[in-house]
């Protein structure tokens, strides 16, 4: 197995977008693509932690951003990483207007549905990126 694809999400603590991205990322790295995908603390990366920077520099990265400020994507680039794919939770919400959600601390039913949808998309992208290495 090659190097795991890094899925890096924004921390998004103010709105549900960040929580959905976070939950989806954990679904991918802990369940759907365990071993093929990994994550790291965005704050560590932004703080300039050497271990985090080395990890990002040597990996294919998927940025998962909640809002248009794109903290995840921008900071991957600033740290010398290469973004192989990007996902925006707001785009997901536009595609699924029926799934209204607002809960931040603990996702509600619609939040969980959105997280699962996003996780499936990310997992498929992990597969594509992993195949490129074979």
């Amino acid at each position, binding site marked *: 197995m090659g190097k795991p694809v890094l899925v890096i999400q924004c921390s998004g603590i103010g709105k549900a977008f*960040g929580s959905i991205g976070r939950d989806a*990322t954990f679904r991918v790295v802990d369940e759907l693509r365990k071993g093929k995908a990994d994550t*790291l603390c*965005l704050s560590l990366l932004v*703080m300039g932690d050497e271990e985090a920077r080395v990890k990002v520099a040597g990996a294919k990265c998927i940025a998962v951003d909640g809002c248009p400020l794109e903290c995840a994507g921008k*900071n991957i680039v600033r740290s010398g990483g290469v973004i192989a794919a990007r996902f925006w939770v707001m785009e997901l919400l536009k595609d699924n207007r029926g799934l209204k959600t607002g809960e*931040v601390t603990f996702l509600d039913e619609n939040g969980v549905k959105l997280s699962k949808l996003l996780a499936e998309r990310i997992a498929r992208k992990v597969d594509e990126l992993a195949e490129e290495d074979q």
Partner: protein
Amino acid sequence: MMNIKPKVGVVSCSGECCSLGTLSRVATRLVLEEYRPDVTVTICLPLFLAGELEEHGFAKEHPTIAVDGCGKLCARKAIARHSNEPADSVVVEDLLEQ
């Protein structure tokens, strides 16, 4: 003239690497939503770190509590680096040891 006290900032590490970060995040949200909703505010730590003057000024405008999951202390260090020393701080790892 009315003296309006600034709200207290509560800034959690993002802590995606381990469950300690999730605990710090959930604790922060509980303070904001349930325990002290009227007197607290927060900001995403990566945004605070990577932001401009407005974001960096957060802890200058608000007395701020850093909530860190692990001993790397990203929240505490970030606040000290860009604004002032935090008014107080909590480390979830230390709480678990206690």
